[in-house]
Each structure stands twice: as structure tokens, then as C-alpha cells.
């Protein structure tokens, strides 16, 4: 049966009305949020309130917090863009995958890592690399109890491979005399990763590998940044809500929501605050995961963030992106300035689509199309035949393939 569009259209229209109402509702909260934002200029007051929620009585605060002194920046402040360094090297890595398919002739998964190296400040051909890895052994495809690994595990393994590749490139370039410092390494996503042991096979090993890559990146001297892009995060809105509560009302029950600011996102808030090129204060997210990074890995590895308006002109609509940085970068003002300027330059390369060019190209290098997947399947079939095996798709998939095939339309005779 095909998708009955006449039934879906009505639902899509209702969805549009719902989103419109939610947007208007958030707009009403914006003035209140801006008022609170403008009042959040006393760093000592903010710090005192953060100390309160970090005390033993409260555990549910997941909002933003300033960095520790002397690196703390005023919450209501904005950072103007600085001049970019004369020369720099930008390394971006991204990954793509073919998930294991129980109905294919042989069980496997494939991860393709794309890397792109851009030399800022010189007219030089960027470098590009791809590294495909095929996984087909039982140890790669099953957990310790013999159950097949799920897609979340493949995603987690791909993420770790991305960071490993980024660290390897950073070390390789560090020793290359033709490469200019600073080396900016860009990861397509947030840096605060959580590998849940209930969903992900070998979660602890993956977490250890991820952290080792972070350590390697730090030791290489690279400036690491994660680029989750536009997010629905409410870290700063949560902080404004916290600051609005009377001290005796600061408890888990009141921190479960953002109160009268509920529904408003940080990107919506900062789209009213940041002019083109400006950034927010550098802050951290108050969470058990981040605390874990700080206590188990070291203070340099707590993950901080700032928001950046990557739009190009003052009259252009704001494009707010969140940039994640580890604390070894956050506590280095020159590195933050260089990162801000270079991300703005990268975003400017693509004109209307404000996204780092190097990440776009790394994604292009990594992407596996459905045609390429079909070719890989064909190669596997040939290889199986060469080894005396008869590859056959499952009856289920073959039957579905028949029904899903291109359908002929009824035509009227002329």
C-alpha cells in the first residue's frame, strides 16, 4: 500500500499550526529572557547561585555555568570577532556507515572516515583522505553474549574512529614543517559523548578510546572544537531561570523545567543578542557527564561551549551555532579568538549556507550513497561466489523487493 497523502496532508497542516503556536508562545517569553539576560552581569552572583546547585541538596540542574576564575566570562557579555591568525591549518573529520543488515547475503558493517585539511592564509590545494573499514568477523558483529550489535553501537564506534582519525591527523601535521600553526581540528558534533552501557556494546572500551583520543589531541597542541550546529539546547535559558528563582525556591522540583521560560531555546535567545560574528561567553554545561570528564580525565577535559552568530552581514538573519571546546582550549583566550575567526571564515566560504567548508567537504568524503552500498553488496556476493558460497538475500527481503519495485502507471490510450 502506498502512502496515502490525502491523509497525511491534514496531519502536516495540524503540525504546522502547532509549531506556529509554539513559536509565538516562545516569542512571548523572549522579552522576559532578554530582561533576565541583561541583568546577569554580576559574575559573583551567578557563581554563588551555581555553587548552590552544586551543593548536596540539588542534583537536577543541567544548565550553563561560568568557567572557574580567572577564566570566567560575564554571562551577559558578547565577544567581538578578532582578526584571524595570518596562517592556520584546519582539519575536519566526519564519518558515515553502512549498518549491519540481517537480511543481506552476509552480515557486515562498514565505516568510512573522511578527512579534509584546509590551509588558511595561503592559496594551496587542500588535502583529502578517506579510510573505509569493513567489519565482518563475529567479534565485531556480536556482543559477548552472541547478540548482534545494534546501530547505536555502530554509531558509537564510528564516533570514536572519527576522533582517532582527528588525533592521528593532528599528530601527523604537527611534525610537518610545511603546515602552519595553529592547527584547528573540527569534529562534526558535540564533544560531550555519553556511551550508555545498556544500549552500546563495549561501552566502557569505547569511552576509554574516546578519552584517549582527546588526550592525544591535547598533547598534539591542536585546538579542538565540536560543531553540533543549531541545537535545541536550553543551557543558558536554564541558567536564567535559575537566577530568577528566590534562594529558598532553588530545588530539584523547580529545576525540572525552565518555568516561565519553558519552550525557549538558547539559539532563539542568542539570535536576539549576537550580531554577525559575535560570540557568547564561554560556559560549561552543569551535568554528571561533564563532571565525569573533569574528575576522571582531568580539568583540561571538561567540555565548554559558546554560541556564535555565523551569519555574514548585519542585515542577514542570525545563524546561531553552538561550538563545543574542551577546557584546554577554553582557558586559552588566543585559541578561542582564533577559533572564532576561523570558523567565521569557513562559514563565509559557502555563501548562504553558513557551515564550515572543511566539515562540508569531510562529510562529502565520508558519505556512502545507496549506489555505493549496492556496489559493496555486489562485491561481497562475487567474493562469496569465488569462495564457493551461494549468497542469497533473505526470502523476506527478496519478497519485499518485488513489491517495492518500480510500479507501472496505468495510462490512457490516445
Amino acid at each position, binding site marked *: 500500500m502506498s502512502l496515502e497523502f490525502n491523509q497525511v496532508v491534514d496531519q502536516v497542516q495540524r503540525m504546522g499550526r502547532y509549531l506556529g503556536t509554539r513559536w509565538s508562545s516562545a516569542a512571548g517569553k523572549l522579552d522576559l529572557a532578554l530582561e533576565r539576560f541583561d541583568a546577569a552581569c554580576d559574575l559573583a552572583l551567578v557563581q554563588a547561585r551555581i555553587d548552590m546547585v552544586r551543593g548536596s541538596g540539588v542534583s537536577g540542574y543541567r544548565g550553563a555555568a561560568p568557567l572557574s576564575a580567572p577564566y570566567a566570562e560575564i554571562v551577559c557579555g558578547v565577544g567581538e570577532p578578532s582578526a584571524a591568525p595570518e596562517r592556520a591549518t584546519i582539519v575536519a573529520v566526519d564519518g558515515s556507515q553502512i549498518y549491519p543488515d540481517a537480511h543481506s547475503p552476509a552480515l557486515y558493517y562498514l565505516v568510512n572516515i573522511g578527512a579534509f585539511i584546509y590551509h588558511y592564509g595561503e592559496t594551496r590545494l587542500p588535502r583529502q583522505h578517506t579510510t573505509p573499514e569493513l567489519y565482518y568477523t563475529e567479534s565485531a558483529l556480536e556482543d559477548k553474549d552472541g547478540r548482534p550489535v545494534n546501530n547505536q553501537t555502530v554509531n558509537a564506534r564510528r564516533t570514536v574512529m572519527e576522533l582517532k582519525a582527528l588525533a592521528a591527523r593532528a599528530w601527523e601535521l604537527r611534525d610537518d614543517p610545511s603546515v602552519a600553526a595553529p592547527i584547528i581540528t573540527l569534529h562534526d558534533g558535540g564533544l560531550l559523548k555519553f556511551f550508555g552501557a545498556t544500549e552500546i556494546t563495549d561501552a566502557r572500551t569505547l569511552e576509554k578510546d574516546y578519552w584517549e583520543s582527546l588526550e592525544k589531541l591535547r598533547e598534539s597542541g591542536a585546538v579542538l572544537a565540536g560543531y553540533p550546529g543549531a541545537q535545541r539546547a536550553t543551557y543558558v535559558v536554564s541558567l536564567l531561570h535559575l537566577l530568577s528563582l528566590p534562594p529558598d525556591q532553588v530545588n530539584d522540583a523547580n529545576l525540572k523545567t525552565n518555568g516561565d521560560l519553558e519552550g525557549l531555546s538558547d539559539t532563539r535567545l542568542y539570535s536576539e543578542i549576537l550580531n554577525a560574528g559575535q560570540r557568547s561567553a564561554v560556559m560549561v554545561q552543569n551535568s554528571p557527564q561533564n563532571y565525569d570528564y573533569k574528575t576522571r580525565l582531568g580539568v583540561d577535559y571538561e567540555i565548554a561551549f559558546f554560541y556564535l552568530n555565523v551569519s555574514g552581514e548585519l542585515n542577514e538573519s542570525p545563524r546561531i551555532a553552538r561550538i563545543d571546546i574542551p577546557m584546554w582550549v577554553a582557558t586559552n583566550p588566543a585559541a578561542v579568538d582564533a577559533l572564532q575567526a576561523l570558523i567565521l571564515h569557513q562559514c563565509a*566560504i559557502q555563501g548562504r*549556507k553558513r557551515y564550515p567548508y572543511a566539515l562540508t*567537504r569531510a562529510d562529502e568524503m565520508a558519505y556512502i550513497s545507496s549506489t555505493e552500498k549496492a556496489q559493496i553488496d555486489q562485491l561481497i556476493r562475487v567474493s562469496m561466489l569465488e569462495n564457493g558460497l551461494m549468497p542469497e538475500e533473505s526470502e523476506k527481503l527478496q519478497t519485499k523487493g518485488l513489491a517495492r519495485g518500480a510500479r507501472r502507471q496505468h495510462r490512457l490510450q490516445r
Partner: protein
Amino acid sequence: MRDSMMATTYANGVNGRGAVGRVLRASTTGFDCGTRGSRIDEAHTFGSFVKVALDDAHTAWAIGLIYAIRIDDDPLARELVMAAGVDNSALLDQRENRMVPVEICVINIGCMVNGTIYHSLPPRPPMSLTEVELCTDDEILRFTDKLDFFRLVLSAREVPSDELLAAALQHASWKRDMDGRNRFLVKCGRQLAGMLSHDLARLAHVLELIRP
């Protein structure tokens, strides 16, 4: 000034072995060949004489004229164009790394079998991926010694036939010395006058295009 510049660039193409691309799709009436954007040079000129082998022994060749050169865009290229200024490294990246595909369309106007030139369609099309080359100066001189190929060009559909024929004749004329060039173009004009006597406006247009 125009003469000397064109003569130089054309010679450069030949010096570089004149590789144009490789066959993508073909028929007896013509073929399309492809190459990378970074390889596009003087070998890829509207109206150039090209040849492609029809067999492995290279005894039979199709001879054609380049009548269209296409460079497709993609969404990323469209965004780069919209930027305030095109970044030099991104430009290099687009041309060298992203392998912008260039397609060159060729109409067949003759063939060469065991060194003998025929002004008729080749007996069969070239195979996919066969290398397409520019004709040598000697081959162009020999091919244009007779003008029977005019009819194939002028009657070709979906080809800017008047402009194509004029460009090809200009190319062929540059392979001759000054006297030979004038004689060649006058001879071409007479041939055209005979063939287009029923369409004086078209004749005047083509004659204007090949005026020495």
C-alpha cells in the same frame, strides 16, 4: 593579434599530445567524451578536429568536430558562487579534488581507415573509455583538402551547424600559410555558395563568420 594567439594556443594543445578525454557514450553520428575540470585546456575548443580509434589496432578512426562543452554544477558549487568572494583554496579544491566533470560533445564528419580519409560517417562507433585526441596538423590539412564534409555539418540537427562549420574552417585555415589560408577560405566560400544558394541569409551569415 588574434591570429598569433590562436595559432599558439592550438599548437600547445597538440604539443601536449592533444588528449581531449575518454568516450562516455557513442553512436555512428557522434559521441560524448568526459574529462576532469582540471584537465580542460586548449584541446577543448569549439570547432576543434578530434579523432578516436575504432579498433584496438588503431587502423580505423572516426573524425569529428567538438560542438559543445558542458560543465555541470552541483549544490556546493552553487553555494560557493553565492559567497561574497570565492576563496582561492576552495577554488583549487573544487577544480582539483572534487573532479568537476566536463563533457565534450562531438559530431562525426568523417573517418580514416588505413590512412585513407573518407568524408562519410564511420562504420561503427568507438567503444566506451577509448581515448579521444586532437587531430594532428597534417591530418587536418589532409581532411580539409576536400570539402565534402560540409553537408554532414550543415544538415546536423541539435548542433549550431553554421557557427560550428565556421569555427572548424577557421581552425583548418590556421594550419596553412597566409596565401594558402586565403585560398582555402575562398574555396570554402565558393563551396558554401553552391550549397546554400537556396538560403541567402544563412549563406551571408556563414560567409561573414569565415571572412579572412
